[in-house]
Each structure stands twice: as C-alpha cells, then as structure tokens.
C-alpha cells in the first residue's frame, strides 16, 4: 500500500516468474555449452614443440617453464594453477604446438594435479612422465 505503483510494476514480472520455468542451468546434470574460441586450459602437443622458448618468454605469469637438458631434449612444464589464460603462448607459437582447449572444470585438492610435465624431444618420439 505504501508503494502500490511500485509494487504493480515489479509484481507483474514477479508473478510471471513464479509460474514460468526458472532460467537456471541445472549444472552439473545439464550440459553447459561453451562458445567457440573459449580460452580454457593450455595443452601442449609435444611432437610439434621445438623448445624455442618463445612461449616461456611471453608468458606473463611464469606458468610455462622449459628446462633444456641439451640442444634437442628438454622438459616442458605447464602449471594451470598459475596460468592467466591470456592465449599469448598460442599466438606466439610458430609451430601450433600449444593450444587453449575448452577444458575448464579443473578444480582439485592437490596443487600438483595442475602441473603437467612433458618430455620433449625435437624430431623424436613423445614420452610422458
């Protein structure tokens, strides 16, 4: 009564909502569709990598770490617990070796789960640790 006009303008919508289906997406039961080009988890394709260090230099967070054993071999580490998902590494890579895929449900109780370490051998076979 104190705000009858105000009530009327909002109450129409409220009553409509009451008898209509909620807009809630029933995650996790319902599938959530991601748009094309979503910047998700960065993933390395070790066969293509040439250990050129370009992505490590460009990474703003230090999520990419390359340890070179010698000229041809090395370890390539990605820590998504540090990553800021800026896609600079994908842009910098001349060999299409690193991609941001649409994987995004990555929560874990162990920080080590976020670290993926690849053994990279230029022109060689892939070996994963």
């Amino acid at each position, binding site marked *: 009564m104190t705000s009858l006009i105000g009530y009327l303008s909002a109450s129409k919508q409220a009553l409509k909502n009451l008898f209509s289906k909620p807009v809630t997406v029933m995650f996790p039961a319902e599938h959530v569709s991601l748009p094309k080009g979503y910047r998700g988890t960065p993933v390395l394709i070790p066969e293509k990598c040439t250990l050129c260090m370009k992505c490590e230099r460009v990474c703003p967070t230090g999520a990419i770490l390359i340890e070179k054993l010698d000229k041809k071999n090395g370890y390539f580490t990605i820590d998504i617990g540090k990553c800021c998902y800026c*896609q600079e590494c994908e842009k910098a890579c001349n060999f299409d070796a690193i991609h941001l895929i649409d994987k995004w449900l990555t929560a874990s109780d162990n920080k080590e789960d976020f670290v993926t370490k690849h053994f990279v051998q230029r022109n060689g076979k892939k070996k994963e640790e």
Partner: protein
Amino acid sequence: MKISMEEIKKEVKTMESRELSDQTPVLRVEPNRLLEEMRKLYDLGLTHLSTIIALQVDNKIQIDYPLSSPLNKKLAPAIFVETIVSMDKPKISTIEDIYPSAVTYEREVTDLLGVEFIGADHRDKLLLPDDFPDNLYPLRKDYTGKELQQKLDELGVGYNPTIPLKEEEDYVMAVGPQHPTHKEPIRFKFTVEGEDIKNVELRLGFNHRGIEKALEQGTWIKNLYLIERICGICSSAHQLAYVLTAEKVDKILDQVPDRAQWLRVLVSELERIHSHILWYGVLAHDGGYDYMFHITWRDREDVMDLLEMWTGNRVNYAMMTIGGVRRDIDENLRKKMIIKLKKLRKNISKHKEVMEKEKTFLARIKNVGYLSKEDAIRFGAVGPTARASNINFDLRKDVPYAAYKEIPFKVYYRSEGDVYATMAVRLDEALESVEMCLYVLENLPTGDIAIKVKTRLQEGEAHTRVEAPRGEDIHYILSDGKNAPYRHKVRAPTLANITSLMYRFKNMQVADIPMIIRSIDPCIGCMERVTFVDAKTGKTKEISGQELISKANRRYRLNEKIKIFEV
C-alpha cells in the same frame, strides 16, 4: 570568461616549457613557486587535478600535476605542471588547500617515493602495511621488484603484524576489511552515536599489491595482462588506456586501423553495460531489495554471454593489444550480438521502470549522501559521481579517444547529487551504451584489426585519460627505449572519488553506509595498484599542546569535523 590554453601559458611563469609525445604542454615551475602558480591556475579555471605523478629521474624526483577543467570545454585536455626536487630529503609544499583531493595523491607519493609535503599534517601510511620498514621507498630505483620482495620476506613483513584485538574507543563500528557490504578489502572506521554517524576514518592498502613496480619488470606485452588485472570489472578500460598511451609513446596512434578503434569502443561499451548493471544490482542488494538484485544479474548474463562469445572469457577479455585488437567479429557473431543487445535494451528499460518507482527502495536512496556541484568540483569527483552532481563532463565527448568522435551519443547528467541521482545516471548511461553498441555493430568499418609493433617502443612520455565505467582513468608512461616502461603511473577513478565520499557521510545514519559507499561504485582493486612504503615502528611523536590545538582547528576548518585518512 572562458580562457584558452594559449592565454594560460602566458599567465604562468615557467622555467621552460616542453611537450609530451602526445602534444600535451608541460609547464615546468620552480619548486618554491609551485603553490603560487597552482593557485593562479585554479583561479583561471583549471579546477580538476587528475593525479600526482612522481618519478625518479637520475638523482632527482620529478613531480607532475596534470590539470584540466570539467567546466571549460576549451581546457578539457590536460595540461601538466611540473617541478623537480632533489633526491636527498625531497620537500615540496602541499597543494591540499587548493585541491583537497591532492591529500590522497600526496600521501601516495610520500609512501612510495619519500617526498615530504610541507604543511600537510597527516603523514601516516596510506597504502603500505603497518609493519613496512622505514626509509624504504618502493618506487625509487634502489631495488628491482624481485629484490624488494626478497628483502621484505627476510624482514617478515606481513607475517607477524600486530592488529589490535578490539577498538579501544566506544561506539566504533568498523566496516571491513571483511564485510558483506563490500566484498573488497577496505576499512572504514565509523564512530557512531546510536544510529548517527559522528566520524569516519579510512584505511586503505589491504588490496595494495605493488603493480606499478611490477610493471617495470615486465615487457610491453606481459604488462598488458598485469594491467588488465588491476581490476576485473573495468579491465578493458585500463587496457585501453595503456595501449593508447603506448601507441602515443611509439607515435603509431594514427596508423592503428579504424576497425580496431571501433572494436575497442565496442568492448569498452559492453564492459560499461555489464559494470553498470552489476552496480545497480548490488545497490538493490545493499538496499535489501534482493529481488531486483537477482533480476538484474539474470539479465546481465546476456551481456556476459556476448563478451564470452567474442573474447573467450567472461571477465578478463584480453582484447586490446598495442597496435589494435586481438579478435575480429564475423558476420554470424555480429547478427547474434544485435539480437541480444535489442533484448538487453528492453530488459534495462524494465529495470529502470521498477527501480525508479519502488517506494521502499527510493526511501533509502533519495536525499542520501548529498554532494553539491561546488563540492564535486572542489574534491575532484569524476565520472558518473560527478555527473550526478550536475557536472556535464564526459571524457568520451570532451576529450575523445579511440573512435568516440565518430559515434553519436548523449551525455546524461542530473542535478540531485544524491545516491538516487547516481543510480539514474547509470541507468541512462547503460541504455545509451546499448544504443552505441548497436550503432558500432551496424556501421563497423572494414579493414585490418591490428598492425605489427616492435617489441621495444621509442623513447618518450605520454598520458591518456579514459572514461572507465567509474570515471576518469589516467595512465602515464615514460619509456626509455627498453622493452619495459621506465615508469608507469595509473590513477583509477575510485581514488579520485574517495575524497568526496568521506564528505557524503555527514548527518547520515548507519543504515546509509552501504548505499553511500556504493554511490561512487568503489573499486578497491583499481585504486590500490600502486606501491607505497613508510613505517613508524616504535617511534612516538610528541606534539605540544599548542600544536595540537592548531591542528584540531585546522581540521575543523577544513573538513568540518570529518577526518579524512586518519588512521
């Protein structure tokens, strides 16, 4: 009456005058004449002090005061007043009597570079933690960021500080750093009597990370993403200001393709829409009107979807890059965007209708937190806060950047000056932004979206002022030709508005606190990106009775019993 730039230059006695890379005039004055010249400039109409930029050049400290006028359109582009002081025991007279908003900026400079301001009476820490060591000034070039970090870790700053268990005085209500009104850490200390607010004190620095120092370690590309994370809500405004400044420094601004400039406008306006909807949704939540909070945030998801579809992330868009933008819009996406924006326009009109009518809610926001036009100018309010106090000033219109010159839009301003006016201005602006986005999408020029830029920029300095959702956002860059800036200064809109905020609590009640704090749309993340150091550990300062009285008188006269930044 309306004076032009040339006449101003004649009026001021300068040592020398030069220009920045972006043709901004710099008037260098002698340190002991600063106060006099500033007063003259204020009287000539340069009433707005954007920030104070201080930096170490060799063994001297250079201090710049960018001045502009919100009322005289001829003087809307900024003019720099510069002065240089020596490094050991740097001293300069304070200008807080002329520009009250300078208090925060001066304290920032004191914390970060150790410049003493003669005549200012409160010089405790503003941004740095209480246990930060004395005589350590982060922005001086003595240490790099990493070295400073190691040194602070050795000293154990932040590990074992002392916080008082309880306020010693009675009737003190602390809001923050953890409080449901404000999700971000900031601390207001309210002295209350029953429900009335008698006094308010503010402590900043809980969100101070030291980004400005870190920027000096990055590269021009890495810095893009650190700048973006100054604030998650106005990320693209900061990025836009940064890339525009960098392009000015590198003198490639006119080579940037048109399409890139238009897309920059599009992402800025989409961000403004989401930020404004977020703001009035949270305002409704603060007023206990949760229904509107849910409805507005439901409709906000539409604009978030648009941004996600285009940029690939919901919050940090990473769209800007030096020389253009990173992602193009294809025909399919353009059509989708137009459909969604039209739906959004309808929804925002519905919000406007409800929020401007609901009486219980209006009772909470009308005549609350009044700020007059004179005060808004005096305290340097910016953005929607100033426009709610009857100041017709919008950087997009008055100092156009990116493609704003080519896009028609209207600037909304209101005369009420209360929280209701800030809400009404933002509602109108959100609607106007939807119109602007539609115009951009329908008239998008064709062409490239970016040009190639070298990893090192030229030497030079420049500044840019950008209308972020919260108001004027100023970035200043000095480049020495290396792959990182020599000095990068950021002043976010909230720091400009916080001075006027303290005066809005006068004669208000405890229940009004959330609404008034909300009225300037505070963004603490933005505000505290800077680096500050100074700590008085164990030292007690003795003040004689006479001094105390004169100080008290001065505070009474200047601030009308409301203390600012007394921690």
